[in-house]
């Protein structure tokens, strides 16, 4: 790796030196601290709000649903979620009253003096099966079907049917969410932690009734997000804005503490999949019939798009003539579930990859062999009906096994299990792909714009609305632009994604920044060169010095140089009705291998080694790319083994403390070994594709498959806690998979 491939992260020194400014560091003088008073029942009506007489309310800024100048909703796909509850509500933890005061202690005293009188609604529903049982009442938010061939009528010699479940997952970004708002001279300025400044702007404009141009959103350093700061920042920004509108000229700081953040912000959608697989006796898939349901929580929020991604990934990178995936998002009385790295795909891929191992056992072939016979290769047609080009998934599987010394380790595991009494070892794999960018025609609808501002001395600012939340976008986009302009990396910076300054290049989600926005910026860079050649006398070819001279000439002659470019949609189309066509700009492809050890004294599972091979088109920054994979795998290991959201009787996360929601620590994580392949065929800059979400998909199924292999049991859900392993071992004792202890 040389310095050109691996320049220092743009945000690196500020972060290690503690200089990066997060929302809690803004330190405005004269700030008003704010808090939120919420419902306690899982649905019902607010009958009255009682204000304690001991509080001097005139000292406080108080906002209720009556103080909303615009529409009382948080604008998202549908606008069903109120910004503040006035009457009916659907879950515990909905905001009703907002308070602000300069003194935190006084604020806490007033918050304790507000009593919301609630009348309970109809019996709450907290799980998918109960929600489906009452689905006649219109509680299915969204339903999709992917159809290829006719899976319902297809027959096969061997069939497998299994039910697979995944739990909610909390993002636990280390920085809790927060916003600071100030209304002055007719403009509302909101700073904070977020992924999508233009989502926030639109939602605040709708709720405040202000024109979008009067609402300026300025992201500060965002301390981790992982999808968790896609939709919820709009809520906090609206709340801070409503308070700020009643206290013109004052900054209102609404920053959640950890317990509130964990209790009310969205988590990964829990899911339940029923997977039917049919194969011929040679192990060739004949049909896949999958019923995939996610729990949307109490409001629609992003569930339809999470569902569509889950549905498209549900049938995996396999060749199969008859495929049907029915997907539904159902309503329950939990706080809404939302975006989390992978966005529905980790859930449906978990189900299929575990089912593939179950089918292999049923067929009497190895999980490797079953996959090798069915993985997509060059020229095959995917479950979404897309012809696959330039990809050899069986080769990826083969190389992953070779790199990870799969066969030797398999032998070592067997020897270990024959010798040792107190633990069992096993290997598991998962083969999968992940589409980058918005699903289907989403990018077409987004019509993102991004651009470059070129200064007279030759330095360049990237203008886009994507935010740096740790994924390294400032670094990778700067590299892409520096490459395209043939200038030093140091000359390129990403401008603050201030909606008053940058165009709308879409949200920072879906592995799209590098691939989609990077591609737009490449085009903008080409436009810059063209204009500099035409009007700045830039020679062909040029070196950095000539570029700087060209910029100086251009500025002298024509003034500032700003080039904006737009997303250009590919010719391929997506059929929303049948879910057939080209669902994504491009895919990343992978085979992951997990080795686990199960302690038979404590039933605890340790991942001993994790190997990840992926085809990613092209790598922009090797260290940043490896960091995405390593970190995503760590989150996937947590999703698989420790991260259980425990819901209380009110449907709200009950273990909403860092001490009770179990993240893997350094001591819990195995060596994570990452290998990239680069075929240069991604839809992004010079053949790159998005990779941020991919690593979330593979760990859970690979690990559960490894546990099942180690113990000869059939776990089918995550997270797998030691308590679950114990129950599975007990259940298996004396049965088909008896374990000699």
């Amino acid at each position: 790796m040389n310095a050109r491939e691996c320049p220092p992260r743009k945000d690196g020194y500020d972060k290690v030196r503690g200089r990066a400014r997060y929302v809690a560091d803004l330190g405005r003088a004269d700030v008003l601290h704010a808090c939120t008073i919420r419902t306690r029942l899982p649905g019902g009506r607010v009958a009255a709000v009682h204000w304690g007489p001991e509080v001097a309310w005139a000292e406080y800024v108080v906002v209720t649903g009556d103080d909303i100048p615009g529409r009382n909703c948080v604008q998202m796909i549908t606008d069903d979620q109120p910004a503040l509850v006035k009457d009916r509500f659907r879950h515990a933890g909905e905001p009703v009253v907002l308070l602000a005061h300069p003194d935190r202690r006084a604020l806490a005293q007033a918050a304790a003096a507000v009593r919301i009188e609630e009348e309970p609604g109809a019996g709450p529903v907290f799980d998918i099966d109960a929600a489906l049982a009452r689905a006649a009442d219109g509680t299915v938010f969204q339903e999709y079907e992917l159809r290829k061939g006719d899976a319902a009528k297809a027959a096969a010699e061997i069939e497998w049917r299994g039910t697979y479940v995944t739990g909610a997952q909390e993002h636990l970004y280390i920085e809790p969410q927060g916003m600071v708002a100030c209304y002055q001279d007719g403009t509302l300025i909101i700073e904070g932690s977020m992924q999508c400044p233009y989502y926030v702007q639109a939602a605040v404009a709708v709720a405040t009734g202000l024109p979008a141009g009067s609402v300026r959103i300025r992201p500060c350093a965002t301390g981790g997000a992982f999808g968790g700061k896609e939709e919820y920042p709009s809520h906090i920004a609206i709340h801070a804005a409503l308070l700020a509108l009643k206290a013109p000229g004052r900054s209102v700081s609404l920053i959640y503490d950890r317990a509130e953040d964990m209790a009310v912000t969205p988590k990964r959608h829990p899911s339940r999949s029923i997977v039917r697989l049919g194969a011929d006796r040679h192990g060739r898939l004949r049909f896949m019939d999958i019923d995939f349901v996610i729990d949307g929580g109490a409001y629609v929020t992003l569930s339809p798009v999470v569902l569509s991604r889950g549905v498209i990934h549900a049938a995996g990178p396999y060749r199969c003539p008859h495929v049907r995936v029915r997907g539904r998002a159902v309503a329950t009385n939990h706080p809404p579930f939302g975006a989390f790295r992978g966005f529905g795909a980790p859930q449906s891929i978990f189900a299929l990859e575990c089912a593939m191992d179950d089918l292999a056992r049923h067929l009497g072939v190895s999980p490797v062999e079953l996959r090798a016979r069915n993985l997509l290769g060059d020229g095959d047609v995917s479950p979404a009906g897309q012809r696959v080009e330039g990809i050899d998934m069986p080769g990826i599987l083969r190389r992953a096994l070779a790199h990870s010394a799969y066969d030797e380790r398999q032998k070592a595991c067997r020897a270990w299990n024959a010798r040792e009494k107190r633990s069992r070892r096993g290997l598991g794999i998962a083969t999968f792909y992940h589409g980058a960018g918005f699903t289907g025609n989403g990018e077409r609808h987004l019509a993102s714009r991004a651009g470059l501002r070129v200064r007279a001395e030759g330095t360049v600012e990237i203008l886009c609305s994507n935010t740096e939340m740790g994924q390294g976008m400032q670094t990778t986009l700067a590299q892409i632009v520096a490459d395209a302009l043939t200038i030093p990396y140091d000359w390129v910076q990403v401008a603050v994604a201030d909606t008053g300054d940058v165009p709308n290049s879409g949200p920072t989600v879906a592995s799209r920044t590098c691939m989609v926005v990077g591609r737009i910026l490449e085009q903008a860079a080409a436009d810059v060169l063209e204009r500099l050649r035409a009007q700045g006398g830039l020679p062909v070819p040029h070196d950095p010095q000539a570029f700087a001279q060209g910029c100086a000439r251009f500025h002298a002659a024509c003034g500032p140089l700003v080039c904006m470019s737009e997303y250009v949609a590919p010719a391929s189309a997506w059929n929303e009705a049948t879910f057939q066509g080209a669902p994504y700009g491009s895919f990343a492809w992978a085979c992951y291998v997990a080795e686990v050890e199960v302690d038979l004294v404590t039933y605890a599972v340790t991942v001993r080694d994790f190997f990840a091979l992926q085809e990613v088109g092209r790598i922009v920054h090797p260290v940043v790319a490896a960091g995405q994979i390593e970190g995503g795998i760590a989150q996937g290991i947590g999703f698989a083994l420790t991260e259980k959201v425990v819901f209380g009787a009110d449907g709200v996360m009950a273990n909403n403390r860092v001490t009770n929601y179990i993240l893997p620590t350094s001591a819990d994580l195995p060596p994570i070994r990452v290998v990239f392949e680069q075929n240069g065929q991604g839809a992004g800059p010079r053949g790159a594709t998005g990779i941020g979400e991919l690593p979330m998909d593979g760990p859970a199924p690979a690990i559960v498959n490894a546990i099942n292999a180690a113990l000869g049991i059939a776990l089918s859900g995550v997270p797998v806690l030691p308590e679950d392993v114990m129950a599975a071992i007990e259940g298996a004792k004396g049965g088909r998979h008896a374990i000699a202890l």
Partner: protein
Amino acid sequence: MRLRCSVNGRRLAETVCPADRLLDYLRARGCTSVKEGCGEGECGACAVLLNGRLVNSCLVPLAHAEDADVLTVEGLPDDDPLSGHFVFEGGTQCGMCTPGMVLAAHALLAECPRPDRARMQEALAGNLCRCTGFEGIYRAIARAAAP
């Protein structure tokens, strides 16, 4: 109480409430590298060195900082090699855990100049990182430990 202590080599003396948190005290004095992630000693984002020992500043009452030397990353030398390795090796992503992590790594290297992976795993277990999977952090420490 009258608190006398040294923060990053700067001597401070002022009247404070002894039960107040060292975390808030440091942040109010400009050390915003000290982050509040959980407020209950679980995440390590507020970790500082108190008399050379790693502590969670959210759990330290100011009474216990009396006559103490406090070090935050603002007090590290500008050319601190470990910090540079964190930048180049992928030791930082979102940056929230980073200052505490850098100090935990310094504390480790002070007692064990060439830590192996197991030693690093043990030493950093109180500093949660949600972004990196720790591999970049280990690479940075290994680079700093190399001769």
